[in-house]
Structures are given as structure tokens and as C-alpha cells.
């Protein structure tokens, strides 16, 4: 893991109308680092990672991702998004395209690679997420877990350098969560830079280099997992962990 920061956020603030969603947030992610962000709902976790690929624009502060300064109206936003993949809670696959087409459309239309090349890449990544046999199906014919794995493969097909996960398992039935987490663990083992918003603490323990706890728009705690799970410094974080680790 290099010490080069690939995401560098300083003093980010974000308002939705009058609602103060991010309050003076600073965070730095190194290349190859796996960061897991947790916290109660409405704490700004999703907003933060959505800022990283400019799906939300921050109101003030500076944000540099993969050497590109992100700000509202920046012309480099599309270049940035080609380097930063995003996996959504609701999968957001394109329902009118087959699985294979879902994976091919980005490389073909955005990166302008040939159809053959795009199909080869798509099949490679479908193998990686263990569903090569579903290539010709439509998203609606797949289970939730399979759909989310396709969504991960769709991002990977863009040959991204950073992957953002916005609660990737929250919309899944319990028995499908592991198949998605397994794929994410394998991805982490390849050295991908990952920022994951999740409540799956087992996964966090296994892959995270750094744990981040957010509450009410602020980053309350940043720590390596050993310390985070055994001796969190803030009371609020301890309470949160007690609640979600109870079962």
C-alpha cells in the first residue's frame, strides 16, 4: 500500500437547503486502502461518498480525487467518474439491457472500446463475480444478490481505480448478503482502493484498514479496526457498536 493519498477531502460542508448534511469533514484515503464508513442513518455517510464521485456537490471545502479537483460545474467530472466506480444500495442496473449489455455499455460508449473488447472484458468480470452463466438474462430475472454482483462487475468493467459502495447489502435478503460480501472481499484482496458504507461489521473486521464512524454530519472517530472494535475513544461510537454488535 502506497502512502500516496488518492482521495483527499478538507473541511467539506454540504447543505441540502437548510439541512447541514456534512459538517467540516476532512478525510484522506491512500491508494489501496480499504475504508469502512459506519454510523446511524442520516449521519451523512452516503452523502460523503456520493461527493467522492460528484453525484453530490459539496457546498464548501476542497476535495481532490485521483488528482482531479472536484467542484460544482467542473469539466473533469466525467473523467473522474471513469476512475471511480459506484455500487448502489438499490443496484440500479439498466433493466432494458441484458446483463452483458449492462457491462458493455459503459466501456463502449464512454471509453469507446470496440464491441469485441468490451464483451471480453465483461465476460472476464462476470467470471470474477461468479455468474458467467447469467450473461444473456435481464436484471429482473436475477436474484438481488446476483443483481448486486452484476452491478459490481459493471463498475469494474470501467477499469476503475477506486470503488465506492453505498450500503451494498442493505436491500438484500439475509441469505444473499454473503455472496455479495465474498465478492467484495475478493476485490479487496486484489488491492483495489475501496470506500464502503456498510453495517456489516464482520466484513469490516475482515478487510478494513481504517474504520470511520460518522454522526450528525461529522466524522467522530477514525481508527484501525482492532482499536475501533475493542477500544473506541468516543462514547457515541461505543454505544453504536454495542447496538449493532449485540446479536
Amino acid at each position, binding site marked *: 500500500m502506497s502512502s500516496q493519498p488518492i482521495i483527499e477531502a478538507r473541511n467539506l460542508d454540504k447543505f441540502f437547503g437548510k439541512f447541514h448534511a456534512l459538517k467540516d469533514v476532512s478525510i484522506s484515503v491512500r491508494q489501496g486502502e480499504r475504508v469502512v464508513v459506519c454510523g446511524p442513518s442520516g449521519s451523512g455517510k452516503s452523502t460523503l461518498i456520493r461527493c467522492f*464521485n460528484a*453525484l453530490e456537490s459539496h457546498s464548501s471545502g476542497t476535495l481532490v480525487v485521483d488528482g482531479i479537483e472536484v467542484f460544482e460545474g467542473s469539466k473533469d467530472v*466525467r*473523467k473522474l*467518474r*471513469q476512475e*471511480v*466506480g*459506484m455500487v*448502489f444500495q*438499490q443496484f*440500479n*442496473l*439498466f*433493466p*432494458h439491457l441484458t446483463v452483458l449489455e449492462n457491462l458493455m*455499455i*459503459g466501456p463502449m*460508449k*464512454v*471509453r469507446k472500446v470496440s464491441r469485441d473488447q468490451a464483451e471480453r472484458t465483461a465476460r472476464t468480470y462476470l467470471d470474477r463475480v461468479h455468474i458467467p452463466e447469467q450473461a444473456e438474462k*435481464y436484471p*429482473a430475472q436475477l436474484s438481488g444478490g446476483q443483481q448486486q454482483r452484476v*452491478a459490481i462487475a*459493471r*463498475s469494474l468493467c*470501467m477499469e476503475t481505480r477506486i470503488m465506492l459502495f453505498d450500503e451494498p447489502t442493505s436491500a438484500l435478503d439475509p441469505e444473499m448478503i454473503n455472496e455479495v460480501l465474498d465478492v467484495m472481499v475478493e476485490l479487496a484482496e486484489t488491492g483495489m482502493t475501496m470506500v464502503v458504507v456498510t453495517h456489516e461489521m464482520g466484513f469490516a473486521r475482515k478487510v478494513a484498514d481504517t474504520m470511520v464512524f460518522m454522526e450528525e454530519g461529522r466524522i467522530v472517530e477514525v481508527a484501525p479496526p482492532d482499536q475501533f472494535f475493542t477500544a473506541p475513544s468516543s462514547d457515541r461510537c461505543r454505544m453504536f457498536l454495542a447496538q449493532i454488535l449485540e446479536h
Partner: protein
Amino acid sequence: MALSETAGLHGPPIPKPPVHQQVLNSVPVAVAIYAIVVGLIVYGSFAGAQNMGYNWQWYRVPQYLYSFTDDGFQWGEISVGLVATIRLSILSFALATVLGLVVALLRLSGLVVGSAVAVAYLELIRNIPLLVLLYLFYYVLGPIFGLDRYVASILTLAVFHSALISEIFRAGINAVAVGQWEAAKSIGMSTGQAYRYIILPQSVRFMLPPMTGEMVHLIKSSAIVSVIAVAELTTIGRNIISDTYMSFEIWFTIAAVYMVVTLILSVGVSFLERKFTVDQ
């Protein structure tokens, strides 16, 4: 859906409708009432025509649809008029669709100027009667820009219907989930690419039913161009009547021809629609 099915099977029984509704909805009663109502209307109109001494000449009508002469089979005037109406409608509808899409995209562009222009256009078109719009295009803009009656008709119909079509586009585009935009953007697509490859293909299934309605509406309102004597179905009907004085027969026939065309269209599209939903 599953709930209402099982409620009758396993849950408490579905309450029966009141007796008078059961009787009225039973097949023989419903058919009988329907036949009586239609019979009365048909009888009434023919009796009325008889009373005013109308001389029915239905036998003279088919020659206006088609004829066999020494030269072989020939289409009649009404059939030629129908083709003209269809051509006029298709050209107008194509132009209306393009205009409607542009107006819808302007409105959704997020630019203040864009939506102001779009809203002004919509309000202007919506608040002028179609007939007045036709006169404006033919008698005012026609001489200025050298539009002949056919072009003026196409423009009138296209502009008038583009207002409604733009609303159909807008609703169809808005009906696609926000997540689709986000997914398209997050793989680096531009707004144009997202529209073209992701949003519009999905909007089609929301837009197909209202668009058919609009096409039917356009075919019907195309009859209005007969007031500036563009050769189409209604104009030809008027011409035949002025030659033959068979107003009852010809207007019934013209009305039936419009109905057949629009019904075929509706049935065809509902078939398409079903195919679309199966595919997804």
C-alpha cells in the same frame, strides 16, 4: 395482487355484489340491453331520415372506395383520400414528436431560459384554438414565408400536437427512477448519452399508450385542414357530396373509415405494449 387472490380462496369470502348488479351483469341480460340500445339508435336515425323523405343510395357508395373497370381494379376517391390523410398524419406526427422532444428537453434542462422558452411555447399553443392556428399558418405565415396549403397544414398539426407530446415525453422521462440517472452518470456518461442509451429507451414503455392516444387524436384533428381545401379524406367527402347530394351515406362512410383506422392503430399498439412488458 397476491393478497386479493388469496383473500377469496383462503381468507374471508369476498362479499357478493347487490342483486340488481348481478342481474344486469349476467351475459344474456347485458347483451339484450346492448342490442336494444343500439337498435333504437339505428332505427331512430333511419326512421328520421325516412320521415324527411331521404332517398338512400347506399348502392352508389362502394364505387368511391374501389371499382372494377375494364382497366382492372382501381382505388376509389375515398381510399385515395384516406391515403392522403395517413400521409399527412404521419408527416405531422413525426415533426410533432421531434418538436415535442426538443420542448421537453428544454423544460427539463435545468436552464432558466430553457424552461421559460418551453413554458411560453406551451402556453401559447395550448390557448389558441386549432382552427385559428391553422388560419394563422395559412393566411398569415403562409404568404410571409411562402408556405403552400399542404405545408401549412403539416406545420399546424405538428405545432398543435407537439405541446401535448412534449408533456408525454416529460412525464415518461420523469417516470424513470432517479437511480438510473445516477448509475449512468457514475459510469461516466454525459447527460446526452444517459438520455440516449439509458433514459429514453426506458421511457418508451411509459410513453407508448399516451402517444397512441395522441396519434389517434392527430388523425382525427387532421380533418380540420379540409377548411383550407387540402385534398384529404374529409375534403374528398365534401367534394363527393357536392357532386352527388348523398350526405348521409358519405358522412357515415367517412366516419367509419376514420374509426377503422384509429381502431386498428389502438389494437396494434396494445399488442406492441404487451410485447414490451414481456421483454422486460
